[in-house]
Each structure stands twice: as structure tokens, then as C-alpha cells.
């Protein structure tokens, strides 16, 4: 096939999702000519996310219309290295998105900052518990940045989104009603917290009764109309209950389309090319610099796009795969422990508790939003003493139901048959009278969980698929058992007739949905022997390649990743525009 070589540009974005949009804007503002390559289709709030067609649960939730097409590209999966990995033919556990705006189109909007004790995880745990407290197989690492350094970038990202919430720690001062465990922030959230649902109020009262500190979940589905610093106006969430896996018809969810893309599209320095699949990054002969990327467009034509700077922002799993396919960085080998690309893969450890109420208590789960409810951080990360407990990490606990849709949501008490008249009767009885408590837990990286390229299976373009080898670490199962039991205590205090607890249990099953919080594989750090990118997310090996996303997390914390991904994107963009562009080369000496 002939490859058409295009004129060189200053920067090329691999992926125009959240990361691509943020970097595209920062780089074009700095005067660079930027090309954005997005493998999926272009899509906009109007007309693509409008109702009533957007409220099609079968299409979007069950058949996953906004997600990656597994017939073209998927992952292979196995729990352990002594098994053969097989292709995931239907998404289950995680749902990689695709399309302009990426997963930030169909995310739930839960927006939390990681704590300093997450970013300095190793140092913190050694200080508090001693190095021997960390289980042998756990690869606990510091990120190379701390909360104080990232604070202005979290702030900037949250003000771009218009996130709704209540600060708990304003410039060192504790604010009642906010999260007392958060690190100091310079400003309050840009918009006030959303209205609290009834089920969440019951949770809040029970949690407070037990001595915990409930606060409103920070939400990027806004509580009121808001105009962000880029001049984009967002509207308030209408609690339609179709958040995760759906685009928002109301302009209320913070997505690239609603917060920034229209501004970027007006910039003559920016060119968007959709339905363009990037195959690899091409390096120079010395393999020290990237000179171009090769991609295939919708008509199957191959192009080479030369660029001085390459931004890899394709979603965590795809970032790892792109580096492996392009030969950037040494691939990780769990047998020897050497190599870095694919190392420290982690996930999210999810548990839950169902509280079944009497039929006089109407929970109305359909009248919710993606990030609406009340949570406690008393069991997040190292916010509690782990000394006697024998594990590290923790989970936030909250009544934050977002999934009360008719096909997917039919909670029934344990002992109910799985099908038939009795099942249907139980669903009718319990649908509107059940509160679900989410236990959203951290995930440590261990030596044997990793990502690499599959030796057998290939994608539609003939390139090896990414292979995932993952099993829940014992540490995380212990953590989940403990925190889910604390959540069950709250459930029992909520006054239901019955409480059913579901801590996470092994083995990890890739067919059951949990979250799409896949992290690691191109982790950041201060030592090139144990990280792929430096603290500015610049590749140690190829200085004009920056890899940005949750693939940079050395391990995953209790909270959702997006706020941290956004903050890191602004952090890296700052390093690029203020330092790298003036003097291209490694920003950190190894």
C-alpha cells in the first residue's frame, strides 16, 4: 500500500478525547500548528446526543454503541501468565470508548482529586507503617508529583468543567459539610453541590449517626448554568438518569464537546481528522526522537504525518499498546522484573451493599444523575489506621445511584430465583424501594499483573492486540471485605428490612461490569528503571513523545481517575509550552 507523506506539523495528537482536546487547545494557543487524529466518528451534542433516541438503553447500555468495536480491535485476557489469553469478544468488566471527545462523552462525571498520600504512596506508607508493611508482591511507587504541585491544575481543570461540589478544606481551613479528608484547595468548586436524592439523604443520616463525615459527591453534571473560562456555557443537569454510557442531551455534562472543543475547532492552527486509526509512531534511526506517525483513514488510505511533537492521549490501555507497537521503551517482563512498558497495570476494586426497604419508602432510582449523591471518605486510601488490618488502600462509600434504568436495574434480595415468575414478582416489589451503596476501592499494582502484546491475535489492521494479565491482589480483596462490611454497617443503620452485602471476590472475571478505570502500563516516576515517563509525562526514551492518561498512574487510588487525568494533562501542557518548546530535549535528567 502506498503511504502518502504529509507536510510536517508542530504537533500531532493521537486521540482527540479529553486529553487530546486539552492539549490541542494549549498547544494551538502557544502558536503551534496541531493535527488531531481521532479513530472514531465526529459527534456533537446537537444532533448526536439528543433525545428521545439517546435514551435507548438497549442500544447504548447493552449493545454499547459508544464503545470500541471489538470486531475491529479488542484485548486478549487471562488471569495468570500460565494461561492462554483469549480475545474479549463482548465488553463486560470495562468499556473502552471511541469517538470524538472519547470516554468523557459518556462518563458519569464523578470528579475527585487524588490525595497527597496517593501521589506519594510509597513514601507515605513507609513513613507511617514501615517498609515491611507493604506486601512483597505489591509494586508501590511515588508518582514524582505531590498534591501541592498539582493543586493549581486540578483547580484549572475543575473550573473548565464547572464541577459542582462543596469544598471541605479551603486554604487549610476545614469547611463543614465538605470532605474533611481532602487536601487544601485554593478555591471552592465552581458551582454548588447538586440536589441530594432521598436515598442519599437516608445514607447521609445513617453515616453521620455512625460518626462518619458525609459530603456531596463532586459532580461534573452541573447543578446550575455555568460559563467556563473558555466562554463555553453549560446547563444544569435534568436528572434524566441516562448518564453513564450516554451522551448528555442537555449540555449539562462536562465533555470536550461542551467545555472546549468548539473553541478549539475555531482555531485555524488546529486540524481535526476523524476516523483515522493511528498504527504506530515512527522514530528516527537513532530511535531517540519521533519523526512522524502512520495512520489509516476511513477509506483505507495510509498516511504518514510528520510532527515535531507527539501527544499520546488514546486512553490508558491504548497508550500502552501504542508504545509497544512503536517500540518506545522497554517492554516489561514479569519473569525477570525488567522493563517498564506494561508494568504496574491496576484497576478498581468495586463492592456494593443493597438495602431493601419497605414498599412505603420510594427511592426513585430513575430520577438520578451520574455523580449525584452522598459519600464518605473515612475509608479512602490511608485516611484510617491500617496497622491492625493487614492491607493497604481503601474505598469511598456512598449512595450515588446512577443506573436505575429498566433493562439493567432489577435488584432483588439474596435467595430470589434468577428467573421466572418469582423473580419478576421480586423485581416489581423491590425496584423502587432499594438503595444501592457503592464501595469504590483502590487497586495496587503487583508484579504479575501486566500488559503486553498478544502473540496470536491481531486487530483488523493486522497488528497484535494488547494482552491483559490480571488477577485481584489478595491485598485488595482484604480491603474490599473490610470496607464493604463498614458500608453494610451504614446500610443496616439506614433502616431497611434487609441488607445484602457484596464485597469484591476473586477470581477477576472480565465478563462482569465493574468500571473502566484501567490504570498503569506507562507509569510516571523519577527512575527510568521503574517508570516509562518522567514527572512531566515525557517519555524517558523519546523526548518528543508525551504520554498522558491514567496509564501514567503507578497504582490506582480509591477515587475515580478523570480529575487526575485532567490535572496531569494541564500539568504536562504547562511543562511543554513553558519549557519543552523553548528547549526541546529531556526535561528531567535520568
Amino acid at each position, binding site marked *: 500500500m502506498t503511504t502518502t507523506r504529509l507536510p510536517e506539523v508542530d504537533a500531532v495528537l493521537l486521540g482527540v478525547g479529553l486529553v487530546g482536546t486539552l492539549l490541542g487547545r494549549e498547544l494551538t494557543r502557544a502558536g503551534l500548528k496541531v493535527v488531531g487524529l481521532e479513530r472514531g466518528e465526529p459527534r456533537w*451534542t*446537537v*444532533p448526536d446526543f*439528543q*433525545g*428521545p433516541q439517546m435514551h435507548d438503553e438497549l442500544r447504548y447500555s447493552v449493545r454499547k454503541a459508544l464503545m470500541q468495536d471489538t470486531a475491529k480491535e479488542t484485548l486478549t485476557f487471562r488471569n495468570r501468565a500460565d494461561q492462554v489469553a483469549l480475545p474479549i469478544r463482548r465488553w463486560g468488566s470495562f468499556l473502552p470508548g471511541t469517538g470524538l471527545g472519547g470516554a468523557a462523552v459518556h462518563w458519569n462525571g464523578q470528579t475527585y482529586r487524588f490525595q497527597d498520600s496517593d501521589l506519594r504512596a510509597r513514601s507515605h506508607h513507609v513513613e507511617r507503617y514501615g517498609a515491611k508493611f507493604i506486601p512483597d508482591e505489591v509494586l508501590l511507587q511515588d508518582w514524582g508529583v505531590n498534591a501541592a504541585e498539582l493543586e493549581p491544575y486540578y483547580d484549572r481543570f475543575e473550573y473548565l468543567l464547572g464541577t459542582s461540589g462543596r469544598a471541605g478544606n479551603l486554604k487549610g481551613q476545614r469547611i463543614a459539610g465538605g470532605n474533611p479528608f481532602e487536601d487544601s484547595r485554593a478555591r471552592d468548586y465552581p458551582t454548588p453541590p447538586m440536589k441530594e436524592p432521598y436515598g442519599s439523604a437516608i445514607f447521609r443520616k445513617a453515616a453521620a*449517626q*455512625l*460518626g462518619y463525615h458525609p459530603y456531596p459527591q463532586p459532580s461534573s453534571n452541573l447543578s*446550575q*448554568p455555568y460559563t467556563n473560562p473558555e466562554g463555553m*456555557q453549560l*446547563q*444544569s443537569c*435534568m436528572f434524566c438518569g441516562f448518564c453513564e454510557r450516554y451522551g448528555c*442531551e*442537555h*449540555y449539562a455534562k462536562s465533555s470536550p464537546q461542551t467545555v472546549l472543543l468548539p473553541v478549539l475547532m475555531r482555531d485555524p492552527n488546529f486540524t481535526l481528522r476523524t476516523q483515522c486509526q493511528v498504527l504506530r509512531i515512527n522514530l528516527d534511526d537513532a530511535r531517540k526522537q519521533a519523526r512522524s506517525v502512520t495512520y489509516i483513514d476511513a477509506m483505507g488510505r495510509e498516511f504518514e504525518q510528520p510532527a515535531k511533537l507527539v501527544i499520546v492521549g488514546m486512553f490508558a490501555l491504548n497508550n500502552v499498546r501504542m508504545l509497544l507497537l512503536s517500540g518506545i521503551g522497554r517492554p516489561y517482563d514479569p519473569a525477570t522484573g525488567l522493563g517498564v512498558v506494561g508494568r504496574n497495570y491496576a484497576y478498581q476494586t*468495586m*463492592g*456494593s451493599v*443493597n438495602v431493601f426497604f419497605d414498599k412505603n419508602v420510594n427511592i426513585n432510582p430513575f430520577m438520578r444523575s451520574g455523580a449525584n449523591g452522598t459519600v464518605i471518605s473515612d475509608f479512602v486510601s490511608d485516611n484510617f489506621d491500617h496497622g491492625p488490618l493487614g492491607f493497604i488502600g481503601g474505598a469511598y462509600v456512598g449512595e450515588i445511584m*446512577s*443506573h436505575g434504568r429498566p433493562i439493567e*436495574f*432489577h*435488584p*432483588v*434480595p*439474596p*435467595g*430470589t*430465583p*434468577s428467573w*421466572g*415468575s*418469582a*423473580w*419478576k*414478582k421480586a*423485581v*416489581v*416489589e423491590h425496584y*423502587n424501594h432499594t438503595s*444501592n451503596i*457503592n464501595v469504590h476501592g483502590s487497586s495496587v499494582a503487583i508484579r504479575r499483573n501486566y500488559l503486553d502484546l498478544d502473540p496470536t491475535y491481531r486487530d483488523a489492521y493486522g497488528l497484535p492486540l494488547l494482552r491483559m494479565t490480571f488477577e485481584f491482589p489478595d491485598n485488595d480483596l482484604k480491603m474490599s471485605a473490610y470496607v464493604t462490611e463498614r458500608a453494610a*454497617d451504614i446500610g*443496616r*443503620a439506614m433502616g*431497611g*428490612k*434487609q*441488607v*445484602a452485602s*457484596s464485597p469484591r471476590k476473586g477470581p477477576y*472475571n472480565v*465478563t*462482569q*461490569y*465493574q468500571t473502566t478505570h484501567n490504570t498503569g502500563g506507562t507509569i510516571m516516576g523519577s527512575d527510568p528503571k521503574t517508570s516509562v515517563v518522567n514527572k512531566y509525562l515525557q517519555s524517558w526514551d523519546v523526548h518528543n513523545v508525551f504520554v498522558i492518561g491514567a496509564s501514567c498512574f503507578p497504582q490506582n487510588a480509591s477515587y475515580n481517575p478523570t480529575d487526575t487525568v485532567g490535572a496531569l494533562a494541564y500539568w504536562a501542557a504547562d511543562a511543554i509550552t513553558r519549557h519543552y518548546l523553548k528547549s526541546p530535549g529531556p526535561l528531567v535528567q535520568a
Partner: protein
Amino acid sequence: MKRSLIALALGLGLPALVVHAQTAAPNNLGARIATQGVEGAAACVGCHGANGEGNAAGGFPKLAAQSADYLARQLVAYANGVRQNPVMMPIAKGLNDEQRVAVSRYYADLKPVVAASPVNATAADAASLARGRTLARIGDSQLRVQACANCHGPGGIGAPPVYPYLAGQHREYLVAALNEWKNTARNTDPSGQMPSIARALSDADIAAVALYFARQPGPPPLASRVLVPPRATRIDRVPSGPTAPPQPSRDVGVEQGTPTSGNQGQAPAQPNTSQPTK
């Protein structure tokens, strides 16, 4: 009906006690207020017509088959000055809570009024009508305005109890209402969407959506739409297959970490009778 009345009253912050008195008899109070008026408030029919059909030229909206909750909230808003209108404000103030609820319920129960002939659209109106249809069904990307249908329902038939119908409403009234949103004479949307949307629309766009909705078939009667949760007995009458005895399930699908049905590979749990720990 009783349930929705209580919900209506509570939603307005009115004591449910007031509403109970209503449920025993047919809504004579509502009918009386509408047709004869009370001390302090003229009869509604004078402007809103004998059948709640409104008056196009006068700009008085159709009330028939409108959501009772919505109507009652407008009356409270007029009384409180949250919605400004020189005609309605004194009338609303002249009614007490019980009367506002009763007359709203009266109009909600009326049959929808079907226009004798569709609103005239001249050839010159064709472009405006097309524009109105686009805004109503799709929205406008440049203006960042979502489709009206998202909240007001397909064809503008409304989504009771919260969102009023627009279908078949008088175009003059719709134009006036959108301008009220625009110039802050009306502040009855807690989400803040309507003022934002109205401000984004030009006079031509306002005329276009008003023309489009005025020409839509009116809403179905309210009673046929408000969903009442089915009682369990109705389900019992439709058996479906043999009832399997409880069995442990393997690998049940999990949504958001929650089992979606059955037990989770464990023995059935005992009903929880433990006390809270504190």
C-alpha cells in the same frame, strides 16, 4: 387520583390535610372557581374559555389537560411574584392554597381541546415552520440549544407532572411565554434552563417554535398518561413458566458492582435483624 393529589399538595408545600377534604367528592370546588369565580378571583372561563381552550388573540393559554402540578405551581408563582403578569397575579393572590390545587385539578381533568382547523401556515411561513421543527426535535449546535422535545416530550406533548405540553398551545401565548423567560418576567424553572434557552433564541426562532408547536396535535388526556405503579396482584395473574426453586447462581451479571438478580453464589442470607451498631 388521591395519591397524586397528595403528592401535588406536598410538592407545593401545602399541608396534605387540606387535600384530603377534596378527595371525598367530585371536584365541585374546582369547577366552581373556574366557572363562577370566588371572592377575590374572577372566573377563569372569562379568559380561558368554557372548555379550557384559551383564547389565541388574547394570548390566554389553553389549560385543558395540562398537568395539575404544573398549573398549581404557576398559580403559586403568580401569587409570589416569581412569575410576573398584571392579570394573573391578583387572581392568583385572591385564591388560597386549597383553591389553587382544586382549580388546577379541574383543568387537568378536562378533555384535551382539539382545534377545529390547524393553525394556518402560509407559504411564507414554510421556512419558519421548518426552523421550528428543527429546534423542537434536534436543537441548534451553534446556539448550543437542545431539542425542546428532550423535556417537553415528542411533539411537545409534555412530560407530566413536571413539564407542560406545548402541542396545540396558542402560538401567541408561546411567543409571550418565551419572551417572559427572556426578559426575566418569569423565573419558574429551578434548573435555569429556560431563561438560558430563551436568551439564545432570536425573535424569528421564537416565532418559529411557537408556530411549530401550535400546529402539533394536542396531548392525550392526562388520566391515560400518568403512570400508576401496578399492584403486585396484576403481575400474579400472568404466570410465566415454572417457578424454579432457589438455586445458587454462578457468575451472575454484575452492574456497578451490584448483582442484578438472584443470590450471588452464596447460600440465601438470613433476613437482617441486627441493630445498628451505635
